[in-house]
């Protein structure tokens, strides 16, 4: 069926062309013999071929071009009065005798152009007459071609300033008026095309219409080439009139195309100065018009314009280009309720690009754009539309590319809020973009706050997000991502160790949430980063003063070890403990710091579960050794009983070495005794019994945990020891240790009364 139509069309076209050639042949003969009457007759017959309704615009164009070529020859003949002996005025009347309107008007336009050229009448009058008479052709395709012919033959004959046809006053206005009228009529015809022929498929119609759009657009092009149109006139007449037509035609295709045309054909400078008018038309367009592309084009052009020379920038400021564009976009989005999110975002991308190029110094503008975008997105579920997410990625990447500096982006408060609207996959992609940007520019992230903000941005890479199926991950991608994160960690740096520590802590906080799959990638760089800090600290040994400083490395190691533990890296963890001990030996001289450090080490070590028996033994042994070598007895005591926990990890498969726990506790007791004696010797009064009470608590803890080495009799003995100590005369009463002991006793009493298995256990202890 369709091929039939196509075949028929070809046939009709061939017939049409044959008709034109046939009549053109006789027309040429009459031209050669200077027979005006015959020439008119045959040319009219030739042009009658254009009256066909059967051809599609494409084929009709072919036919039209043939006729057009022939009309050129006729025009040359008309020009030479000596050949036909008829004054141009008479000729102008003569061609109007033709009975059929289409040939008549083609001939009239042809003669009209000669008429203008002869200057026997003012160009404006002839043009006005022509454009008016052309109203007679209301058939869209025929009308469009006829008017396009008129436009074609008249374009070099407009009464423009400086042209040969310049009139007296307001001459440009006449030219403008003519082109505008022709434009308006052509557009009307073009819009009307869609209502023709009910049987035709809409799609085909749209296609046919698109084929003709350049005929309409050409008028705007002609307008743009009229020299005499200055900004004033453009502002007051040309643009409002064109826009009026565009808005009133209420046709999606036309509005889109014409807006685009306006933007493309007129100079940027004009656009800038008439931004308000131009943008004002946008919300009035049909809701289905693809305004985003139009506006994007406009902003693209304006930003190129701004980029072209620095001299024009003040103009942008003067007309408040950003504010106007921004508000226009808001209005458009408001007006076009059905606009998909992707459209809105595309608009914001364009606006952002514009802002970045025109006002690179105005970060607040950038943030404003992002904010508007957030506003648009909020209340909507995460985006599923791949195009929309792509646009968001573009939106977010733009500032990065422009500023080459994530630090700038981090100051944009709306940046992460926009990112939140991405789906997880895209979020990751965006995070990658951010990281790559940092890498590319070797940006140094130098404060913990920024790191915090950055991790907020790239959290998609750092941890599993809710509801995201892990098993769908592509292994390759995952590795790439995590490697990038790893590389990123190296970019955090601050000369101030204090701040650097904070950074490392922040990083740790975040990457620890990553789960075992990520840690193998992310921990090593953190460790190396930490090591670097440590080395730096070592390097500046002499400068390290104060109490907090020496503790710093310890803390680092603690967290490092935990990290290492979490990722099952025994050798690494062991290495770190070794390092930690070395550091402890070599660096920490202050006794108080030593106490803090050793407790840290013990605490960390206690929680390590990666070590094999041998390594663990070595480390615990070392830890215990250091504990016992602390300067003050109470400190020693406390460290040693803390070490007891190293042998008893209250975990399912944690180590439970009751014997060595007991050994530690006994050793602590010994030290406590020694401390007591030392106190007695030194001050004549024994020290507080606090240490004993503390050790008692440890006993009770292990007793309850089921350490068979800790027996009720041992507890009983210790209680009695404390009681006797407290009653001895040499003891200085200490309310706080008394209270401590009393509450411990109360606890034992309470457990006994509670009964059950625990109660039975306590039964043998007498308080």
């Amino acid at each position, binding site marked *: 069926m369709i091929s039939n139509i196509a075949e028929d069309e070809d046939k009709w076209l061939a017939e049409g062309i044959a008709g034109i050639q046939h009549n053109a042949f006789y027309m040429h003969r009459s031209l050669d013999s200077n027979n005006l009457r015959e020439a008119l007759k045959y040319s009219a017959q030739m042009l009658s071929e254009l009256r066909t309704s059967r051809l599609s615009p494409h084929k009709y164009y072919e036919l039209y071009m043939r006729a057009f070529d022939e009309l050129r020859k006729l025009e040359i003949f008309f020009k030479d009065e000596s050949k036909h002996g008829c004054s141009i005025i008479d000729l102008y009347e003569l061609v109007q005798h033709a009975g059929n*309107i289409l040939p008549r008007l083609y001939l009239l336009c042809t003669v009209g152009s000669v008429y203008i050229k002869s200057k026997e009448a003012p160009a404006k009058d002839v043009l006005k007459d022509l454009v008016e*008479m052309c*109203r007679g052709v*209301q*058939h869209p395709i025929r009308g469009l071609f006829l008017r396009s012919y008129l436009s074609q033959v008249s374009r070099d004959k407009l009464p423009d300033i400086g042209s040969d046809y310049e009139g007296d006053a307001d001459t440009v206005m006449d030219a403008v008026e003519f082109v505008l009228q022709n434009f308006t009529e052509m557009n009307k015809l073009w819009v009307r095309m869609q209502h023709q022929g009910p049987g035709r498929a809409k799609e085909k119609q749209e296609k046919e219409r698109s084929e003709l759009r350049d005929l309409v657009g050409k008028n705007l092009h002609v307008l743009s080439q009229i020299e005499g149109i200055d900004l004033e006139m453009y502002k007051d007449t040309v643009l409002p009139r064109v826009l009026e037509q565009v808005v009133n035609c209420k046709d999606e295709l036309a509005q889109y195309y014409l807006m685009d045309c306006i933007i493309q054909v007129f100079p940027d400078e004009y656009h800038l100065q008439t931004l308000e008018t131009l943008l004002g038309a946008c919300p009035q367009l049909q809701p289905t018009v693809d305004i985003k592309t139009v506006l994007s084009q406009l902003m693209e052009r304006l930003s190129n314009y701004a980029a072209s020379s620095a001299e024009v920038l003040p103009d942008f400021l003067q007309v408040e280009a950003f504010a106007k564009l921004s508000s226009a976009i808001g209005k458009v989005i408001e007006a076009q309720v059905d606009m998909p999110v992707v459209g809105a975002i595309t608009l914001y991308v364009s606006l952002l690009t514009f802002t970045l190029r025109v006002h690179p110094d105005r970060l607040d503008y950038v943030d404003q754009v992002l904010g508007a975008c957030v506003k648009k997105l909020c209340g909507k579920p995460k985006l599923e539309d791949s195009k929309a997410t792509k646009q968001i990625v573009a939106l977010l990447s733009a500032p990065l590319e422009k500023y080459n500096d994530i630090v700038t982006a981090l100051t944009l408060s709306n940046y992460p809020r926009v990112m939140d609207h991405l789906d997880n996959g895209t979020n990751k992609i965006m995070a990658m973009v951010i990281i790559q940007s940092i890498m590319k520019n070797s940006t140094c992230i130098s404060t913990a706050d920024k790191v915090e903000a950055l991790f907020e941005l790239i959290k998609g890479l750092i941890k599993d997000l809710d509801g995201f199926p892990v098993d769908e991950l592509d292994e390759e991608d995952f590795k790439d991502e995590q490697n990038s994160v790893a590389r990123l960690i190296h970019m955090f740096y601050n000369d101030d160790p204090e701040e650097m520590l904070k950074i490392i802590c922040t990083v740790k906080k975040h990457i620890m949430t990553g789960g075992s799959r990520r840690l193998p990638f992310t921990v090593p760089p953190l460790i190396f980063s930490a090591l670097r800090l440590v080395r730096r600290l070592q390097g500046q040994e002499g400068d390290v003063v104060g109490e907090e400083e020496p503790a710093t490395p310890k803390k680092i190691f603690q967290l490092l070890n935990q990290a290492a533990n979490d990722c099952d890296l025994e050798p690494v963890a062991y290495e770190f403990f070794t390092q930690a001990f070395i550091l402890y030996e070599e660096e920490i001289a202050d006794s108080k710091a030593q106490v803090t450090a050793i407790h840290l080490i013990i605490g960390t070590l206690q929680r390590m579960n990666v070590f094999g028996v041998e390594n663990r033994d070595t480390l615990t042994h070392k830890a215990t050794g250091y504990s016992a070598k602390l300067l003050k007895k109470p400190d020693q005591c406390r460290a040693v009983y803390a070490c007891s926990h190293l042998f008893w990890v209250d975990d399912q498969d944690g180590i439970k070495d009751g014997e060595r726990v007991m050994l530690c506790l006994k050793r602590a007791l010994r030290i406590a005794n020694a401390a007591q004696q030392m106190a007695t010797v030194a001050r004549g009064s024994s020290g507080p019994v606090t240490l004993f009470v503390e050790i008692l608590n440890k006993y009770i803890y292990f007793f309850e945990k089921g350490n068979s080495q800790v027996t009720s009799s041992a507890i009983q003995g210790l209680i009695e020891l404390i009681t006797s100590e407290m009653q001895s005369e040499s003891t200085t009463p200490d309310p706080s240790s008394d209270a401590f002991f009393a509450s411990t006793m109360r606890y034992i009493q309470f457990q006994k009364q509670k009964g059950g298995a625990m109660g039975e256990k306590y039964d043998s202890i007498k308080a």
Partner: protein
Amino acid sequence: MNYLIGAFKPSCNISITFADGKSRKQVPIKKENGQTVMVPLFQSQENISGKISIEPLQGKKVEHNGVKIELLGQIEMYFDRGNFYDFTSLVRELDVPGEIYERKTFPFEFSTVEMPYETYNGVNVRLRYVLKVTISRGYGGSIVEYQDFVVRNYTPPPEINNSIKMEVGIEDCLHIEFEYNKSKYHLKDVIIGKIYFLLVRIKIKNMDLEIRRRESTGSGANTHVETETLAKFELMDGAPVRGESIPIRLFLSPYELTPTHRNINNKFSVKYYLNLVLVDEEDRRYFKQQEITVYRLPETS
């Protein structure tokens, strides 16, 4: 053979020449046999003068009972062909009965002749002016010679010449308003106007403006009307939408119009109409006819 032919030939040649024949404007008319000949042009109140010359054939003489010249204004109905109704008849006796031996010329003159009607060649009727020279003879019948001439009468531009403006339509279907700039046009005039579409609910294919001539002959029960379309001028191609206005500019000069003739001697009338025709896609025609008056403007040249 020569002898035989000579027997049927008139025994003399009669020629009629006008006094200002050389300078007078000649116009073409169509003779009954289809040939076009150029004849002089007069208007009412003019003097019609000239010479008649009678030249007997070689060696013959013409015997006659008198020579006269008549100026006749005749109306001929085609259904009654050959039967002329003379509305004007003037006679000048040129010669008393006698014999003519050799070429003899007679001057004649009809001064300020009243010729109220124009020469007209219609479908069913014609009005003609003719000079008729008769050499009366007692036997063999009279020798008669005719000379046609054309009369055209000029009217000055009318003082009142209103435009024709009208709104017509079919309810809920088509409403148009049209305007012709005048109601009276001269023969070389231009009709300027426009058609304004107030409502269009039908798919119009095109719109033409026709000039129609209505010739009615006879009177009473015998009235016979013949309508001819002289011009069919396409005004619009394609379907307009509401609010569209289409210009009209129709030059009358290419068409063979005559002035409007109203009730010529109770024999016939010729009227002109502008017929606006809209054709829809199903080839239905919607039209509105308006009479216009056509008059002849004095030629300036």
